[in-house]
C-alpha cells in the first residue's frame, strides 16, 4: 500500500457557463485525505458537493486546479494526465444515494462485474466477492437479485462492489439518504470500519448530521467554498 495520501486537491475550481451566465460551483477547493481516513463532506443543496465529488471521481473535470490520487497527479485543470477510465477502475470506488446495482445481476454478480472490469475473473474473483459480501453481513443473500434485497442490503452490496478492486479512494454520494436513521447510521459505521480496515481513504457526502461522530473528520462546503469543520 502506498504511503501517499489517498487524495490531494489544490485550488480546484469549477465554473459553469461564461460571461453573464457564469456560475462558480467550486472555488479553490483544496483538501487532503490520508489512506484509512474517513471524512464527511457536509453542505446544503447546491453548495457544490456533487461537483467536488465528480471532479475527484474523474467524472467531471475541474476548470482549474490539480488533483492527485494515490500520489499521482491525474488532473491538471480540465486536462486528464491519465487514462481516466482505467484509473477509475484501478483506484476509485463509488457508492451512491441509490444503490445503483445492475438489476439483472445478483448481489454476487454485481460485485463480480467490478472485478471482471478490472481483469480479475474466475475462482479468485468469486472468492474475493464472497469474502466482501460475508464481511458486510450479506453473504447469505449473495444470490438474490437487487429487487429481492432491502435498501440496506442493496447499499451493502454497493459498498462491496466499490471495495472489490481495493481502491485507494472510496467516494460516497449521500449513501444513506434513502435509508431510515438506524440503517443510515449502520451504513455510516460500515464506511468507517471499511476505511479503517481496508486502508482506503473515504469521502462521504452527506446531509445527515446525526451520524457525524463516526467520521474522523468533517469538511463543510458552502457556496463553493470548502472549509474544515472543527
Amino acid at each position, binding site marked *: 500500500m502506498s504511503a501517499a495520501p489517498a487524495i490531494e486537491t489544490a485550488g480546484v475550481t469549477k465554473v459553469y457557463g461564461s460571461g453573464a451566465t457564469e456560475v462558480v460551483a467550486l472555488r479553490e477547493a483544496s483538501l487532503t485525505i490520508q489512506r484509512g481516513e474517513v471524512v464527511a463532506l457536509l453542505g446544503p443543496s447546491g453548495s457544490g458537493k456533487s461537483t467536488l465529488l465528480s471532479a475527484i471521481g474523474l467524472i467531471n473535470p475541474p476548470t482549474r486546479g490539480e488533483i492527485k490520487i494515490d500520489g499521482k497527479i491525474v488532473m491538471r485543470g480540465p486536462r486528464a494526465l491519465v487514462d481516466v477510465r482505467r484509473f477509475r477502475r484501478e483506484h476509485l470506488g463509488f457508492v451512491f444515494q441509490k444503490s445503483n446495482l445492475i*438489476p439483472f445481476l445478483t448481489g454476487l454478480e454485481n460485485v463480480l462485474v467490478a472485478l471482471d472490469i478490472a481483469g480479475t475473473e474466475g475462482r479468485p474473483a468469486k472468492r474475493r466477492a464472497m469474502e466482501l459480501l460475508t464481511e458486510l453481513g450479506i453473504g447469505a443473500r449473495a444470490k438474490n437479485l437487487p429487487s429481492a434485497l432491502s435498501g440496506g442490503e442493496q447499499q451493502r452490496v454497493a459498498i462491496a462492489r466499490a471495495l472489490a478492486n481495493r481502491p485507494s479512494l472510496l467516494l460516497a454520494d449521500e449513501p444513506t439518504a434513502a435509508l431510515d436513521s438506524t440503517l443510515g447510521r449502520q451504513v455510516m459505521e460500515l464506511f468507517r470500519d471499511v476505511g479503517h480496515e481496508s486502508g482506503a481513504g473515504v469521502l462521504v457526502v452527506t446531509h445527515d448530521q446525526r451520524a457525524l461522530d463516526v467520521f474522523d473528520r468533517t469538511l463543510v462546503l458552502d457556496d463553493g467554498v470548502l472549509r474544515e469543520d472543527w
Partner: protein
Amino acid sequence: MNLAIRDVRHSLGRFLMTSVGLGLLLMIVMGMGGIYAGIVADATLLIDRLDGDLWIVQRDTRGPFAELSRVASNVEDRARTVPGVAGARRFVTHTVQREHRGRPLRMAIVGLAWPEDRGQWLPMVSGRTLAQGHYEVVADRTLGLSVGESIKLGKDMYRVVGVTRDMIASGGDGLALMTIADAQSVQFDTVGEATRLERAARRGRAETRDLGLTQPGMLELADQPASAIPALGSPMVSAVLVNLQPGVDVGAVRAAMEGWADVTVYTEQEQRELLLRGPIDRVRRQIGLFRALLVVISGIIMALILYTMTLDKLHDIALLKLMGARDRMIIGLVLQEAFLLGAIAYLVAYLLGERVFPFFPRRVIVTNDMLVWLALAVAVLCVAGSSLGIWKAMRVQPNEVLG
C-alpha cells in the same frame, strides 16, 4: 462475465416474445424466397421432366408455356424423318375448370404420347401410371382427387388411376395427365348440336366452292367427323418434343427443322429461359421487390428493438463506464444481445416455416442456399441494427449515474 446472457435471462419473457415476433417476420422473408423458388421450380418442372432435347412449336410463338401454340400433328412424323432424331412425341396442354363435388376444380391437362409415354417418369404417391389409351387420368395430389374416383371431362368420365406429387403447372394448377387423344377430346369437346350445325355449314361451304363441285364425294364426307376428311387432317397439338441420338449436332438438326415454314424450334434450355423471362418474370420481380422491402422493414424493426433495449440499459451502461468498463465490454453487451435475438428469431423462422409452408396452396421451396443467405442477412441486420444502440451507448456519460 457475460452480461448479455444475464440481461436476457432477467427479462426472458419479453426477450422471447420479441424474438418470436421478429422470427415471424423473418419467416415471411424466408417464405417469399421459398414462394419464388417454388414458382420457378413449378414452371420449369414439366420441361425438365419431359426431357425433350428440342421443342417444336408454332411458328413465331414462344411455345405452349408462354402463349397459345398449335402445330399440326404430322410434325411428329416429319421430325422423325430428320437425321439424328431418336424419337418425337406430341405434347398437348391446356387448362380447364370444372365443377367437381360441388366446388370448382381447376387443372392443367397434359397429354402423354401413349403408348410410348405412359407417365412412367411421374413421381407417384399412390396408384399407377396410364395402362390404357382412354378414360384414365393421373392427377396431382393438389387437385384433391383420389385413386378410383371418377371425374367428368367433356362427354366422358375419366377414372383417376394414380396420384402424383409436385406436378404443378406454371400457373400453379395441379396437372392432370392423360393420353393425347383424351386431352384433345377434352380440349375440342363441343355439344352435339354445335357439331351438327358445323357439319351442315361445312357441307354448305363445300357446295359453293371448287372442292365440292369438282369432287362430289367430298360432300358426302362433309357430314362425317372431321377426322374422316383427309384434307382437314387430325387436330392440332401444342408442341412436338424431339429427342436426339447421342453425339448428334443439335444445331444441324435444329437448322433442318427450322426450314419448315410452320414451326419454330427451341432447345430445352431456351424453352426454360423463355418461360422464366416471360410469364413468371413479373411475378419473380414482384416477389423480389416485396422480399427486399421486407428485409428493409425487418432491419428497421430490429434496429428499433435493439435501440430500445439499449435505452433500457443506459443507466447501467453509464454505471459500467463509471466503474471503468472498457468500450468493448459495452459494445459486446449490445452486440451479443443483438446476435442472440437474431439467432432465436432465425430459429423460430426456420422451425415455424418448416411446419407452416406445406399448408400453402403453392409450393414453398426453402433451399440450403436460401437458408445461408437469410442467416447472413440476419447477421448483417444484427450488426447494422445494433449500430444505433452502440452509438447511443458510446455517448452516454458516466456522470449520468450521479443525476
